[in-house]
């Protein structure tokens, strides 16, 4: 694993357009030219190049322009690739570049480099601050919001597994005189292999593009008759143009695509959740559960006159819903204030769909939470892919070291694997490890 200091990004706005531009900046630009194009490029001249898949199938006909350092925007060697504006083509090209030569740029990084290399002046620099801040927030939001619920759950499970294995090995290394856990070579082999299998499967799903929602999805759930459909209609009716309103795969889950704060969003209205033995209803509930898994946000609707009760809590726990807001509907009946409060980090909204109370507040929060349009789902996907691939690399190395009985090197590879996963989901590599060790093992000679 090496640190790639050459950066690449799609620099045109997302969406289907006639032309898209990919920019690359850094030392590896010359290598890319050599490997992709074969001949030298004269600086600042446009050259026509065909980009092919490994199987030699033509992907796109593109124009490339080479800017020699320091006469470029960033002051480094730069390559500009103008392709057709199809997002799939552009993602493919970017992926090829990021596989070997470069890493995905951080938000605002091109401009940052331009400034640090004295290519832009102080006045322009003032603006960078806001730009970097805004786009950083966008990027992390896009990364999180576009994730399918299933994908984040899988990553969380992987982190748990890596952490358990690390805790086991680090306890053996750091507390050899305490009652150490079983840390046989064979155990480690099995544990690492199980991680590799799960991770490979996950990477495959990333490659197939199924971990990110093309458009972020908000799923509305709750017990029967709490006002889920009225809430869906309210969000659809006023908030934007209804792009399509097709029935879902069964009569029980309706998919609506709407535009909210300039972003495409899918709203799924689901069947009510409750304990039942009716087979048709059970089918509907299964479908609801699936749409919970693919949701980027769940709106959990409650009838305020009944309150948020233990059954609601149980439903949320049972379905492992992580990212949800609670909507207390029908405050027209209870007379509660149309407010929003945070209870242990979960937003609770008081609204009435009938009298339109508190709904503006909810819509405002929803649009704030929607995916910003300067970060594409494609880039979010590539970011995850980068982290997962370097994690996989470390796991294979760990397996090697384990075969060679080099425990301290296994530990090092696992630490790096952990760092990569945490980069996707967040967490503290050191503290989480110590927590796990001290809660699992009785340490203290």
């Amino acid at each position: 694993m090496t640190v790639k200091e050459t950066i690449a990004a799609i620099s045109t706005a997302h969406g289907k357009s006639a032309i898209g531009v990919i920019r690359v900046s850094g030392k590896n630009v010359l290598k890319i030219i050599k490997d992709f194009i074969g001949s030298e490029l004269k600086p600042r001249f446009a050259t026509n190049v065909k980009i092919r898949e490994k199987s030699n199938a033509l992907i796109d006909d593109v124009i490339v322009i080479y800017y020699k350092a320091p006469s470029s925007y960033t002051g480094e060697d730069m390559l500009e690739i103008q392709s057709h504006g199809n997002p799939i083509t552009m993602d493919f090209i970017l992926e090829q570049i990021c596989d070997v030569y470069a890493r995905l740029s951080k938000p605002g990084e091109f401009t940052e480099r331009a400034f640090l290399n004295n290519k832009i002046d102080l006045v322009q620099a003032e603006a960078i601050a806001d730009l970097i801040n805004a786009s950083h927030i966008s990027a992390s939001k896009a990364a999180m919001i576009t994730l399918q619920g299933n994908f984040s759950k899988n990553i969380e499970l992987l982190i748990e597994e890596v952490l358990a294995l690390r805790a086991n090995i680090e306890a053996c290394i750091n507390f050899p005189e305490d009652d150490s856990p079983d840390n046989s070579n064979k155990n480690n082999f099995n544990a690492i292999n199980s991680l590799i299998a799960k991770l490979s499967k996950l990477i495959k799903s990333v490659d197939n593009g199924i971990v990110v929602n093309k458009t972020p999805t908000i799923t509305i759930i709750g017990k029967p008759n709490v006002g889920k459909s009225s809430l869906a209609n309210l969000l659809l009716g006023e908030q934007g143009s209804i792009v399509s309103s097709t029935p879902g795969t069964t009569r029980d889950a309706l998919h609506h695509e709407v535009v909210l704060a300039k972003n495409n969003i899918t709203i799924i209205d689901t069947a009510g959740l409750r304990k039942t033995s009716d087979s048709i209803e059970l089918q509907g509930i299964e479908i609801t559960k699936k749409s919970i898994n693919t949701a980027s946000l769940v709106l959990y609707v409650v009838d305020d006159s009944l309150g948020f009760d233990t059954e609601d809590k149980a439903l949320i726990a049972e379905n492992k819903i992580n990212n949800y807001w609670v909507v207390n509907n029908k405050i027209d009946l209870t007379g509660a204030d149309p407010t929003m409060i945070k209870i242990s980090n979960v937003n609770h909204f008081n609204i009435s769909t009938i009298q339109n109370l508190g709904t503006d507040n909810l819509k405002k929060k929803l649009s704030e939470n929607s995916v910003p349009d300067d970060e594409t789902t494609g880039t979010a996907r590539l970011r995850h892919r980068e982290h997962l691939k370097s994690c996989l690399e470390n796991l294979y190395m760990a397996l090697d070291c384990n075969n060679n009985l080099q425990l301290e090197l296994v530990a090092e590879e696992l630490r790096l694997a952990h760092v990569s996963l945490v980069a996707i989901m967040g967490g503290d590599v050191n503290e989480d490890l110590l927590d796990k060790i001290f809660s699992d093992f009785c340490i203290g000679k």
Partner: protein
Amino acid sequence: MKKFDVIVIGGGHAGCEAAHAAARANVSVALITMKHESIGQMSCNPAVGGIGKSHLAKEVDALDGLICKIADHSALQRRKLNASKGPAVQATRIQTCRDTYKSKMQQAIDAQKNLSVVEGMVSNIILDKEILQGVVMSDGSKVFAKTVVLTTGTFLGGKIHIGDKSFSAGRLGDNASNELENFFKKYGFSLGRLKTGTPPRILKSSIDYSLLEEQGSDKNKPCLSYMHDHYGQTPNIISEIPCHITYTNNETHKIIKDNQSLSPLYNGVIDSVGPRYCPSIEDKVERFYDKDAHQVFLEPETLSDKEIYPNGLSTCLPEDVQLSFLRTIKGLENCEITQPGYAIEYSYFDPRGLTKYLETKKIKNLFFAGQINGTTGYEEAAAQGIIAGINASCSVRNIEMWCPNRDQAYIGVMVDDLVTLGVTEPYRMFTSRAEHRLRLREDNADERLTAIGHKLGVVSSERLLSLKNKIQKIKAESKRLEEIKILPSSKVSSILEKKFNLKLKNVQTMKSLLKMSDIGYKDIQGLESFGKTINSDIGHLVAIQERYEGYLKRQDQEVSNILKTQNIKIPEQIIYNEIKGLSNEAKEKLSEVMPHTLGQASRISGITPAIISLLRIYIKKHSL
């Protein structure tokens, strides 16, 4: 009028290193302690080293500090831990004679020139218009100095608990220093409370060893100090005494459970946080209720060996309960307690109030080191002590202060963790805290730090020469092994194939064989063409370097790329409130910690890469 360059308050493990280091740097030092006879006292278990801890201790030794040399001189048992696990995580531990350790430490302090010991209790710090002048003693006399290093351990606001008894003390039998605590409270230093515990001590003659497992020294008797294991000196040898191992049982656990409400840990009297890695026996029984037995190490305390330290049985139950649960343990059926176990609560300063040189941000030339910064352990204390001592002397001599980086030393990891993240429990070193663990090894602390120590004036020229000799020998042996070629069809190659299943495809060097995971230096020593080694200890060091070379190269590459940003200094005069685009939360956190570099800033929780970018741009824009 007494006047010095440096005053060190406290004669524990931090204080001794601080005072001795500053004196070696040729400035005049006063070590103020309540009792001369308590200098170098080991208040907890009588051992130095262990995983992570020996790493710190050896770094102190590489800077010519005292802790390793004195531990070697007072060793009752010497062991190498993790001997089968790879050199980067191996550690040395020495059980010491508490009395010998203390008297050797006192001798070293007394013999050092530029260093005077002053007996007494400090009650106040003298400031004149914010400038440090010295200290006031409890008898009203004054001692003046340009710099002060405070190393008062658990003595600030110390309070001991045994059952329902509690009283103010710094250590059993020693007074706490409460007046000084008031000064710091008044000055707005941020104080917190922590607790730690110690087990009852047992009369040796009351223990029946006949059925207990014995644990003696390792055969090759490892030393802690480079002076003894690499530079050719031999430590003072005292007679060895083994440790013994026994276990608690369900009967022990039942007594502890039945009396839980009498333990101040459980009845609400103590609510400060103790270390998770050193739980009391009450905690172990409560949290790991499914375990039928907990291990107890019976460690000798002194050469005269009248007292035994039962490691693993820290408790603050009433004394009679302590005795009754002890007597359920195999070998301890008729034991007598010489000193009951106790818990001690004490005050510490939030170390985020310090710079990485361990100087307080509030008062210039005032340094804090050791347990008052929220750490635990002799080695952790000694490591901070030597840094504070060096930097106090730097301030006097008007030269730039120093602290190693995270990729340079465990000391750097510890100080960075302390001043950046603060503490939530007593801080102890674990090797897992060091992201550069493969580099920061026991075998190379001298290569990492001794030359720097010499430049700072705390390492003698003779010692630097010893290091240079060692490095030169390593290079020579490495070169020698590189020049021995092994041909694919040779006799040696067929032995390699037979013994290690290694098929040579092309010409290899003897040195490159060491890169193979299962071939050690001993193995190649047995090969015919090996020739004559310069020194087999040196040979092992070459083998270690070869083992990690690939990893370290990879890390170097990462480090050098990352370092470019990491090492960018943040100027002290930066005002975070003026930086556009920073959130209020970021402004608050950065202003509180005042990180020295962008790297340190990035380790503060909640500081994102975007914020680091903003800082980098701001620093450059204002050419700070």
